[in-house]
Structures are given as C-alpha cells and as structure tokens.
C-alpha cells in the first residue's frame, strides 16, 4: 500500500511514529483526517495505550477470593466484608508536576479521586508518594507539590492520611508525584464504566470544556527537554470546589437506577473516556456531537473539544428517556450537564459537529490498536560492590543516630502532613506519622490500613530484589497496625524504556513485584505506569515501583500504633539482624556511598514474622508495633520513643561476630519489628514466637526522657526531636 503523505512534523506533534501511522492507514484503508489523527495520537500515547508495558503487566497476579474488580476498570475493588468494598488506585502526575508543581500535583489528586468516584465509591482517603532532588535545591518543587496536594485534598474534604517523601539526586530534574485514593462502596453498588445498551445517552457533566491540556497525554509520554517549558499551556488548573460538587452529585446518582455507568475524563479527555467506556462492551460504539459539549471558551474546534483535558468532568451513561432525572440531580448542585451523544452497536466512535461527520474510527483501533512495542532489556552494569570490612568501625552511635534522624529521608514528615487535613471524615483512627494510617469503616468495627512504600535506592541496586522489598515494606507497615495485608495497587515510575537497561529494570521490577505478591497472596488490582522520567536522556530516575497497599482489621479496637505507650513496658526486637548495610541510609549519610546489594529478603521468614505480629495483636499482647525500615533498628527505636514521648533504657549491644555493631544498630535487615508490651504478656509472646519460629530479643525497658544504651550512648528525647523535626520544611 502506498503510504499516504503526511507531514513528519504533524506526526511528531501527535506523537505517532511513521510505523504507527502506516498501521492506522492499513486498518482504516484510508488516511485519517486531522481530528482522527489527533484522537489516535493521544490514545496511542504511552500514557494511554501502555504499549511499552502491557506485555509485562500481564505477569502480575491480580486475583484472590477478595477481589471484586481487578485491573481494567477505573480502579480496583476488594471485598472487605459486611457488605463493603474498598476501591483504590494509584496514579502518577510526574510530568505536569515537574512543569507546574502546584497545579500538577493538585490536578493529579483531582484525577485519582475521579477514578474512585467512577466506581460508585465515596473517596475516604488520599495518599501521596513523592520524590524530589536534594534539599534545599528542590524546595521550590517540594513547596509547590505539597501545597498543591493540600490545596486540592483539603478543599474537597478528603483526608490525606499517608504517603512518603524521598530525596535523591536522580529526581532533581524528574520529581515524582504519585497519588493514591481509597474509597468505599456497598458491594452491590459497585459500578463499572461500561457503555451498555444501544441507544442509551451519553451525558457530559461538571466543568465546561476549555482548551486546556491538549496533548497532555502525549506530553507525559516523552522526555522533558529544554523546550518543555514552551508546552506549558498544557498544564491544567484544578477546581477542587467544582469536584466536590461533582463528587456529591455522583453519590446522589445512587438514588436513581437510571445510570448505567460513570466514567471519569482524564488524560485524552472525551476521546479516551468515550472510547474506553465503549471498548469494555463487545461491539459497542458511540456517536457524539461536539456541538453539544458545553464550552468555556469561544472558537474551539472539534479537535480541541475531543482532546481537551479540562478537569472535573465525568461521562455518564444514562438509560434513554431518563436524562432529565440525572440532569436534575446535577442541577441541584448547580452543575451543568449535557447529552452529547448515545451508545451505538456499530463498534465505531463517530464524532459529528452538528450535521458534519468529523471523525469515525473503530473503537478497538483506538483502545487496542496501538502496536505493542517490542523492547529489549539488557542488564544494567552492576552497581558498585561494597567491601564491608573496609568500612571504618562505628565510633559514636549516638552522634550517628542524630545525623540519621536529621537526614531528609528519615526525618519527621510532620511539617508536611500537618498541611494536609488528615482528619476530615471522622474516620482516621491512626493518623499519619507512624506506619500505615488506618480508617474506620463507619457503622462497623472494620479498619482499613493504607500505605505507600518504595525504597528506590534498593531498586537501583537490584530492581528484582528492590521490588520485593517494596512489597514487603508496605506489608510490614500494614501489619504493624495489626491489620492483614489485603491487596495492592502499584505505580511503576521509570526512565526511558527505549534504553535497554531501563527496559531490563522494568522486567526485573515486574518479576520482583509478581514474585513477592504471589508469596504473600496479594493481588494487584490496579495501577499505573509512568515512563520517560529522564530529562534529555541524562539523569534517569532510579526504578521506582511505588507499592500502594490496603489491609484490613476486623475490629479497629485492636489496632496498634508505633509509639511507646507506657513506662516500664518491655521493648523487643522481633526478627533477626544481619550485616545488611548495602543500600542503607547509614552508608549514604555516614559514608556517602550508594553501594552493595540491598538486604536479602526471605519471603517465608517475612510471612512468619507477619503471622506472629498479627497473632500477638489479635490476642492483645502488644502495646505498640513499628517496623524497622530505612535507618535500621536504632532509628526505628528512636521513632517509637519520639512518637510515644517515652524513652527507653537498654543494656549495651554487643553483637556476636560476624555481626558488626554498625549493622546491628543501622543495618536495614527486613522482617523486623520493634514492639512493646506489658511485662506480664511476655511469657505468652515468647511461646507464640516459638510456635511461629521467629526470633525475639529483649532490647530494654520503656521509660524516661532519653534513649540510652548503657555504656554506649545516651541522647535526650529533646535533642533527638530537634534533629528529627528540624529537617524537612
């Protein structure tokens, strides 16, 4: 077939390759017109089509008896009992946040909330997983992003209860902003965004459509370069107030059975929402008239209308003849709604402008037509090894502890989360600051624990192991609250996958995630992929597979927090320590090294430790629990003291050879917790530990105003707090 002539520049503008263009012409048996080309361009962008990652994602486990909805819908859903489903998803807004930190982050939050609403669920919590270049250079980004997340979440009235913040050189030009939303819906009210029923109406509700964000999806699918700032008009401005009204109106839709489906408008706007909705039903198509789309601006072409990424809009599939009922529900919230078309059975998305047809494309070509990219992974160069014997011995553990507490990667996040309303909803029974946060399910005794985790330094040193450790850390944070890990959502942030070592990282990461999730019997029910996080090919980010996890406790009265609760309690280390200094924060802060292998993870041991902690929590043996993560045992212990306002007295630690003192204090061996309990509960815990084959050791006694290891060091809580709370903003 002769290739239809098309301007190369035009192709680049819509981010299609000549090869992809050839496939389009072949499938259509004609050249696409301008509007069609634009529509295909956005839907075939990496962001929407997953053409570089789809094959890999199929390897992730996605089922368990609790799963009500796995990947493929706007968000995943799991059954949590008593008739309730938890709905959740994580999503990236990295590129927009790099360009405009406040609005990029804010609209990221707005977008993920709409995904949860589309499932019919009421959003009950937000989490944010953030990565920046080192402070103070990145403070402009940090300030903007934190303000943007708070600005949206606080205004809309959904508590932001958790997240994480890391600083590393690799994020200097590519900050990462991932947002997760969790919602609740009655199981029998769970919606799916399927355009069922030929003749049913398609209604567009919420904000008027403007020219904002055209080509946003393609924008997220290319590397940032010097010209990126010229594309800045692509950045949208969020309106959380409008989304709050939209949220309430969508909740009111439950009062009518006239609604068939709800679909949010995100990347690629109307084009993708209509195509996706139709694409989920075999043979379905849609007919829409751009003239009926309410506009914010004059002079918009059909192309603009179809590709606009204006925020705070939803597509509603409504039973024919019942549009007025739905319109009235939105009208009550002063929201505009418009019937813009209807569902067809011709498998095509037809777009008209009044009488003129402006586009007609097979739905399957839009949603599934993008040729998958065959990428090749080649193992990256081995990162520098670590000769542990060459490290100078630890001299002053107290001084090191203070420096670690003040390290921006370990310091208190209070300066950030106090800018987020984390209480609205009257459901936050474990606030941010410890391990996972917990939300009660009102009207029941159920508690949902939620967390996001990823140590990307580990992933850089060994992506396969790093991904497993991310799953394990998330699960450990859930378990530390006494909740059972239930399901996962993941956000895979990578550099340019066309580079073989990056694609290799992706392969390894996905394999690691799959391996750990299978071992813990955790389904991955939703997720997102963000690629091209490298500016101009340099300064690629570390592989950063952020794991969002949800856990369940049957009675939140049995929940555990991280801080010590009572003087005189026994303080124990659960699990065993090894010479795990590879990739540690200790190495970075004290020796300026990013080297070695991340700590080895024994998945069976890790599970055994979970079982022990959960059994002990179930039997109310524990007064507090906190996992050991970055900074190792001593930082975890210090956090228990600072969070509880109670010190600890311990005999000196004299590890048996070959375990080193620095590793005992600051090594990051996984599968460990610090717990406290009343002395009388000790025998029972000991027998429980024996039964689960988990090592426990007495560290000391809670009490006093300092952390003391006899003869080794002593620090007052006050000086520790000053170091810990002084670091991040």
């Amino acid at each position, binding site marked *: 077939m002769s290739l239809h002539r098309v301007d190369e520049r035009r192709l680049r503008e819509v981010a299609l390759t000549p090869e992809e263009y050839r496939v389009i012409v072949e499938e259509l048996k004609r050249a696409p017109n301008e509007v069609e080309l634009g529509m295909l361009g956005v839907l075939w962008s990496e962001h929407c089509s997953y053409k570089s990652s789809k094959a890999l994602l199929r390897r992730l486990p996605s089922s368990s008896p609790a799963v009500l909805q796995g990947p493929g819908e706007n968000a995943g859903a799991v059954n949590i009992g008593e008739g309730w489903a938890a709905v959740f998803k994580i999503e990236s807004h990295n590129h927009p946040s790099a360009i405009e930190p406040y609005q990029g982050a804010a609209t990221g939050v707005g977008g993920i909330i709409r995904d949860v609403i589309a499932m019919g669920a009421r959003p009950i919590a937000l989490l944010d997983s953030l990565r920046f270049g080192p402070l103070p250079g990145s403070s402009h980004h940090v300030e903007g992003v934190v303000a943007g997340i*708070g600005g949206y979440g*606080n*205004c*809309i*009235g959904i508590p932001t209860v958790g997240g994480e913040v890391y600083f590393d050189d690799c994020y200097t030009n590519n900050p990462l902003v991932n947002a997760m939303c969790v919602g609740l819906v009655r199981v029998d009210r769970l919606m799916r965004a399927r355009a069922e029923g030929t003749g049913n109406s398609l209604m567009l509700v919420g904000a008027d459509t403007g020219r904002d964000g055209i080509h946003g999806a393609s924008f997220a699918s290319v590397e940032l370069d010097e010209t990126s700032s010229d594309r800045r008009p692509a950045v949208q401005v969020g*309106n*959380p*107030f*409008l989304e*709050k*009204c939209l949220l309430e109106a969508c909740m009111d839709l439950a009062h009518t059975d006239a609604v068939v489906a709800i679909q949010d408008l995100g990347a690629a706007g109307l084009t993708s929402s209509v195509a996706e909705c139709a694409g989920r039903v075999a043979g379905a198509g849609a007919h829409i008239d751009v003239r009926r789309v309410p506009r914010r601006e004059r002079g918009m072409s059909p192309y603009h209308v179809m590709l606009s990424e204006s925020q705070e809009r939803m597509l509603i599939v409504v039973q024919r003849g019942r549009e007025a009922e739905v319109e009235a529900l939105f009208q009550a*919230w*002063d929201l505009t709604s418009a019937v813009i078309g209807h569902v067809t059975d011709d498998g095509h998305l037809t777009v008209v402008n009044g009488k003129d047809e402006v586009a007609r494309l097979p739905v399957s070509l839009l949603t599934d037509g993008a040729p998958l990219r065959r990428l090749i992974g080649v193992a990256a160069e081995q990162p520098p090894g670590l000769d542990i014997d060459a490290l100078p011995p630890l001299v002053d553990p107290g001084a090191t502890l203070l420096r670690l507490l003040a390290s921006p990667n370990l310091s208190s996040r209070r300066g950030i*989360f*106090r*800018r*987020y*309303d*984390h*209480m*609205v*909803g*009257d459901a*936050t*029974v474990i*606030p941010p600051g410890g391990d996972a946060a917990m939300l*009660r399910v*009102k009207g029941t005794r159920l508690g949902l624990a939620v967390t996001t985790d990823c140590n990307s330094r580990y992933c850089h040193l060994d992506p396969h192991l790093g991904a497993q450790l991310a799953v394990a850390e998330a699960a450990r944070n859930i378990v530390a609250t006494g909740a059972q890990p239930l399901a996962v959502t993941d956000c895979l942030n990578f550099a340019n996958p066309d580079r073989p070592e990056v694609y290799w990282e992706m392969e390894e990461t996905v394999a690691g995630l799959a391996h750990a999730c299978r071992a813990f019997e955790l389904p991955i029910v939703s997720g997102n992929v963000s690629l091209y996080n490298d500016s101009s090919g340099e300064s690629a980010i570390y592989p950063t597979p952020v794991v969002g996890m949800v856990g369940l406790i049957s009675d*939140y*009265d049995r929940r555990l927090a991280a801080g010590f609760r009572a003087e005189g309690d026994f303080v124990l280390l659960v699990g065993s320590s090894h010479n795990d200094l590879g990739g540690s924060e200790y190495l970075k802060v004290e020796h300026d090294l990013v080297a070695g292998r991340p700590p080895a993870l024994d998945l069976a041991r890790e599970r055994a430790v979970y079982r022990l902690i959960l059994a002990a929590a179930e039997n109310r043996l524990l007064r507090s629990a906190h996992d050991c993560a970055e900074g190792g045992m001593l930082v975890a212990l210090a956090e228990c003291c600072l969070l509880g306002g109670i010190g600890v007295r311990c005999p000196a630690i004299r590890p048996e050879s070959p375990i080193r003192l620095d590793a005992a204090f600051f090594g990051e061996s996984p599968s460990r917790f610090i717990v406290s309990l009343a002395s009388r509960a000790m025998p029972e815990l000991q027998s429980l530990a024996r039964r689960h084959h988990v090592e426990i050791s007495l560290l000391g006694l809670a009490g006093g105003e300092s952390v003391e290891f006899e003869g080794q060091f002593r620090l007052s809580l006050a000086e520790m707090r000053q170091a810990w709370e002084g670091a991040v903003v």
Partner: protein
Amino acid sequence: MKFGVVVFPGTWSDRDCGWVIDQVLGAELQYLWHKDADLKGCDCIILPGGFAYGDYLRTGAIARFAPVMEKIGNFADRGGLVWGICNGFQILCEAGLLPGALLRNASLEFRCQWTNLVVERTDLPFTSQCSEREVIHVPISHGEGNYFADPATLSRLEQRGQVVFRYCDATGHVTNSANPNGSVHNIAGIVNARGNVLGMMPHPERCSEIELGGTDGLKLFRSVAASAMKVLVS
C-alpha cells in the same frame, strides 16, 4: 433537641457534625440545604466546616448570601442558637453576625493539628458542661483562621467577655507558641453580645469519640443539648 446542619456547596464537615449528633450524641439531626428558606424547626443551627463555594475570593464571602443565611440571621436575632465551626465561623463574620474577620494563617500554611483551648466562658449554652478555665484538646484544620478585629472591636470583645476559647499550652497558659495561626489575643472562638451565636475555628466534631483521639468536643455538643431546653426562642 433538634440540630440543623447547614450544607453549602463545598461544605464537608456537615457529615462529621451529623455523625456526632446522630450517632454519638443521639440527638435529632436535620440537614439544611443552602437553598432552604426554612429552618425546619431546628433548635440549634450549625454552620459546619468546609470550603463553601471553594472559599474563592474570601472565605465565606459568597456563602453568606445563600437563602438559608437570611433565615439564620432572623433566627439569631430572636435568640436562636447558631454555632459556626471553622468555615462556619468565617461565614458568620462575613455575614456580620459576629465581629471581625479571619485572615490567612500567619505561617501562610494550612494547619491540621491538635490544639489546646482554654474555656473562658462556661455560662453559655455551648459550654455549660465545661468547667471554669478548663483546658480542652481540640484539632484545627484551616488555612485562614487568623482572627482579626480592629482595636476598638477587640477591646469591646474583651471587656464584654465575648472571647470563649483561646489557644493555650497544655497547662492553660496563653502563649505565643501555643498560637497556631497568628490570631489576635490567641482568639480561637467568640460569641456575640447576647451569647447565642458562637464562632470557633477548632473542630469539636473531630474529637467526640475516643478512637479519634479525644472526647472534649462532645462536651460542647452535650452543653447545647442540655441548655437548649432552657433557651426560649420568642
């Protein structure tokens, strides 16, 4: 005892207040829509927290023109109990039902945290269950809670004992470091001269159950429930 909880577009503490009234206190609950022209026989009207109309332009600026506000003004004039919490306080100031205004926090940052409040009036229908100069533990969550009144208004407020809550430290001392937002005289809540309209920035509905970290807020709801019986709305 019937509580009316007003819902504007953008309000979000309505459901939390409703939860406390209905599920914790066990009192009668009536949501009032901003377009309602009738208070439906409520004995105490709560203007809850949130971002009514997005708080665009100024907090409470647009909300105060909602149809329900006119009725609430009349109700207050007749001695009815009106209780503005957070955004509700901002709306009451905008509407002129309480003096002063709420500016951006001195830090220019939103703050969600626990605060201590010293209760300076216990003879009010809102605080009768508190003891004299009791220190209560109540969270705040706002970006614009920095209370301001011109010097004349301020001295009038102080002279007439209209300051009900002040930010203080755990021992009840009113200090600079205990002031989370820069409010003049550490003011966290005020009442009108007649004592039937209360505005406060902190959120009592967020601390009415022990699992949420404290129950001091419930004292205020209980006070209203107890004393409403005595207030005669003429």
